């Protein structure tokens, strides 16, 4: 049966367990759902009985049924409203928990993995997959349970009067429920997985298209890119609609069954009930109406099949993401204590790069404490990779790297990071205020300190012009700064960092010569007493150093 299958399914298990863990919430949700369904059935069938009874039974007692009708009418509205509010709140709470947990897992992975993320992929995971999981309780777990309970109750009730009619209801609806759930279309899962892949492809391609609008437009190839994107989305959308059609077919089938059961119950009641007894005549109306009342709990069932595929596919991907995160977790606790004063950094016959590509071999060098070095080399020679290796992001393929007397791989990365000040090659300003970006490096820096360092990189004037001053908001990709300005802001951030090792990757790229020379000199007070490594493609692009290393 579907229930045990859900529970055994490793893709659904962790999520089902977190639903179970909120016992009170899901029990309340189920009870309210059942109450809603039973009130609807009660209202319809009692009304039918009442009218028929009034017509044919002499001296029928009217006040109890009349009150019952009013009760069911109000109970139905109230329980439905409460059920919806309670269950949606439950599901949304679960989502917050899942979403935060997922992001935490991402931040706990060893940092180099972050470089491998495909943005389209991760974004989809956050939004789509977690959204898909909200069907788990509302569409997948609860409706079949409620339907089964309601069908059992109604068939017992009907069976009390006519065993055959009760059996027809029990068997007929069991078939409907089985069709919609247990006979879960297996292809629904593989289809959902395909759909996810297709969605991701469209998203990635749309991201590329948007990123390249200006260049593609200048090249006059925009129409081609648009056509390609439309074609891709056409394929994706066809898959999406296929699911809907599938669900519609299931609903169509269920409706047909329901009506057949209805007619069968009418026929059976007509022929089997002892209608000579006037007291029983109203049953002829009440029993079919009870069947009609079941429509409400049955009509949500066709969603189960599709939800199963969607939830399973989403659950599987999220589960893998979480597991993968566990394997490569880096723990801040097994920290070797790192000296907070400058240490020598020695590289012994390093081979660095990625498995696909070795970028630097036989690199041997010793960076003395508190000295300034320039590492000069053309791009592709491994400057940035060397920086990432010293930073601990890209472990060396071979050879040894020591900080003081400790091999780097034995150091806990977070502790090591706290000693390293960094200016990376790419943009690394987050969408937040200027002050927040600067204080990433030094949370306790005063406004005065921020202004002083901005002064040094010749940005103070630009930021003073802004009405929000240090609160100036940086847009995504720091679009409201020029390339050179963003670079100088990142330099300012690197200067603020208290760490004793300063890694500067092309610190002056995009800054004109005169300004570069001025800044080089002005920032020296911030760098004295620290070990500084400039990574640059020419001598001129580096600061004043005691030694140059060419790679």
């Amino acid at each position, binding site marked *: 049966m579907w229930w045990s299958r859900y529970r055994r399914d490793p893709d659904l298990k962790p999520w089902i367990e977190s639903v179970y863990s909120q016992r009170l919430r899901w029990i309340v949700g189920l009870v309210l759902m059942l109450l809603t369904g039973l009130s609807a059935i009660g209202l319809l069938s009692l009304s039918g009985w009442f009218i028929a009874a009034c017509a044919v039974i002499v001296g029928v007692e009217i006040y109890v049924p009349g009150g019952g009708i009013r009760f069911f009418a109000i109970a139905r509205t109230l329980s*439905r409203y409460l059920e919806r509010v309670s269950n949606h709140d439950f599901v949304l709470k679960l989502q917050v928990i899942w979403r935060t947990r997922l992001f935490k897992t991402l931040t706990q992975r060893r940092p180099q993995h972050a470089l491998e993320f495909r943005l389209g992929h991760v974004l989809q995971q956050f939004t789509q997959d977690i959204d898909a999981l909200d069907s788990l309780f509302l569409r997948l777990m609860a409706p079949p349970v409620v339907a089964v309970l309601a069908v059992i109750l109604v068939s017992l009730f009907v069976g009390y009067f006519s065993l055959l009619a009760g059996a027809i209801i029990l068997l007929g609806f069991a078939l409907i429920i089985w069709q919609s759930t247990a006979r879960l279309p297996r292809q629904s899962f593989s289809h959902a997985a395909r759909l996810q892949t297709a969605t991701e492809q469209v998203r990635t391609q749309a991201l590329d298209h948007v990123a390249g609008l200006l260049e593609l437009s200048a090249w006059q190839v925009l129409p081609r890119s648009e056509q390609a994107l439309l074609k891709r989305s056409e394929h994706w959308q066809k898959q999406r609609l296929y699911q809907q059609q599938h669900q519609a077919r299931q609903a169509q089938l269920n409706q047909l069954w329901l009506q057949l059961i209805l007619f069968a119950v009418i026929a059976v009641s007509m022929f089997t009930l002892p209608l000579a007894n006037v007291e029983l005549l109203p049953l002829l109306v009440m029993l079919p109406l009870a069947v009609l009342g079941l429509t409400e709990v049955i009509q949500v069932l066709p969603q189960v099949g599709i939800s199963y595929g969607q939830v399973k596919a989403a659950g599987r991907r999220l589960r893998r993401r979480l597991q993968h995160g566990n394997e490569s977790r880096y723990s801040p606790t097994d920290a070797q204590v790192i000296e907070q004063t400058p240490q020598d950094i020695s590289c012994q016959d390093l081979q660095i790069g990625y498995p696909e590509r070795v970028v630097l071999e036989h690199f041997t060098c010793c960076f003395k404490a508190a000295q300034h070095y320039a590492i000069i080399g053309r791009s592709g020679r491994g400057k940035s990779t060397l920086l990432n290796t010293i930073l601990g992001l890209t472990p060396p393929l071979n050879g040894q790297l020591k900080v003081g007397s400790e091999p780097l791989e034995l150091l806990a990365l977070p502790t090591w990071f706290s000693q390293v000040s960094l200016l990376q090659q790419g943009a690394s300003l987050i969408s937040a205020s200027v002050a927040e970006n600067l204080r990433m490096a030094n949370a306790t820096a005063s406004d005065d300190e921020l202004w002083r360092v901005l002064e040094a990189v010749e940005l103070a004037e630009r930021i003073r012009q802004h009405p929000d001053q240090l609160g100036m908001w940086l847009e995504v990709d720091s*679009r409201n700064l020029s390339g050179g300005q963003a670079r100088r802001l990142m330099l300012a951030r690197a200067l603020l960092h208290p760490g004793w090792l300063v890694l500067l990757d092309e610190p002056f790229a995009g800054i004109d010569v005169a300004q570069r020379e001025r800044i080089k000199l002005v920032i020296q007070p911030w760098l004295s007493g620290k070990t500084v490594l400039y990574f640059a493609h020419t001598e001129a692009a580096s600061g004043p150093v005691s030694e140059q290393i060419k790679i």
Partner: protein
Amino acid sequence: MQTKIARQYLDELARFFPHALSTLKRLAQLQGTVIVIQMTALAILLAGTIEGKLEMQHQLLLVAVLFATLVLRHWLFGRFEQHASQLQFELEQKARSVLLQRWRMQAKREGVLAEDADLFLTPIQQLGPYFVRFLPSIANAKWQPLLILGIVLYFDWIAAAFLLLSAPLIPIFMAIVGMGAEQISQRHLESVKRLSGLFLDHVRHLTTLQIFAQTDRAEARVETGSERYRKLNMATLKVAFLSSAVLEFFASIAIAAVAIYVGFSLLGFFSWGPATELTLMSGLTILLLAPEFFQPLRTLAQHYHDRAGALAAAELLRSKEGDDNAATAIESEHSRADVEPQFQFKLSELGLKVASYTHQYQDGAMVEWPSFSAQAGQIVCLKGPSGSGKSTLLQALAGNLSMANEPQPFTFDPSKYQQAPIAFLQQRPFLIHGSVADNLRLIAPDASGESLQQALRQVGLWSLVEQFPNGLEQAVGEQAKLLSGGEAQRLALARVVLAPTPMVLLDEPTAAVDPDSAKIIIEGLLTLAKRGCLIILASHNPQLEEIADVVVTLSSRS
């Protein structure tokens, strides 16, 4: 006001599919009619049997009618779904091409943000249900209750009055609640967009956040973001649920009232009006039809959030003020979609004259561009301090700067320039998620593997690409991880080498590049100039200034 614009957008979309829409509406109404017939036949059959008044042949006839309605309902259901899914498909594709058109125009004005890419997926998915669920259910909500009201009126005007009186209350209450729902839903969609922007930003800078020990704060920000999302969501939902609770309440009360009224009439409690003539048959018919009287309204309420969702989505998809309306956008999309780049003119025909011009940014800053002119085959170097508008001038030359209200400072000799492709290499080279070959074929889709290899050789990348496990088909990875800054820049240059354009614009081509790469790039530029390209570049690099035929110095004006 905002909703008006959004509604306009939806109307314009609807205008493309008049037949499909009216077919859907008619199918919905037909379904409603069949249900009414089925329920009436059922009531007559049941009541007639109980009272024993029905003759055998009438009973058989009614059974036949019931089975006919069963088959009809089944068939209509299938037809409706088939049409609905076809319409949804076409409609959303249409909305996508309108969006692509809007991006074109927007790119030149304020630019398109990366998170806007999501518009292509989620909001457009919200449009379909409005057209294939909400609009047909409105059509049926106008028809089926009227039909039922007519039948009930025929039997008993007091029962009809019960229904009639409760019915108008429902739309009134729902409208009141619905207005709130719409507002909240709009806020909600905006916040979903912001939330996905927050994730994108934080995930992209995950390493930076880790290095600067900011992960705790980032997690807190994500958590508050999600929590805010939940609260907004709940607010929308509560209002939506309340509006359907209002509907259900009135429907239940009306059904109960009708039932009790009919029951009491049959007992003979009322000795006046139509109540005296009520029989079990008419009473049962009324009772069975009463829920169906409200059912279309309930369906409508279920799909009401489709409307709110579609309006909120339309608000985002709708072009900003000043854009042409969607319809003309679609027109021009059709006429321009087929335009392929035309390489048929001679490179040497191009010449450029730039008149001196003061450009004002949106924030009020001004830059001055001096006049200069250049011929095909020349190299122009734009220099000046950072912030002096070099990149902006390049954007203007690329045709990417909207200067609609200002005199055009450029004149190009041949009028053919209008259709000329321009190679435009920005500071951060534009590479797509895909292989090396995908990136090159972006510009020259038909290029053979051989010519790709040739182009890579010329920019000194072939020896590297050759080493990749998958060669040309090697994926360059997220943010081009496999390539250094200089290599990414050279890969972008390889596109120009592969398919030279009359004008080549480069923004800081050697800024993040080593001397050897710079040398290769400079050689490449000289070769391109020799082949007749007009090259304009912005740079601080004195080496580039040396090879330039024309040097233009820009300055900012404060």
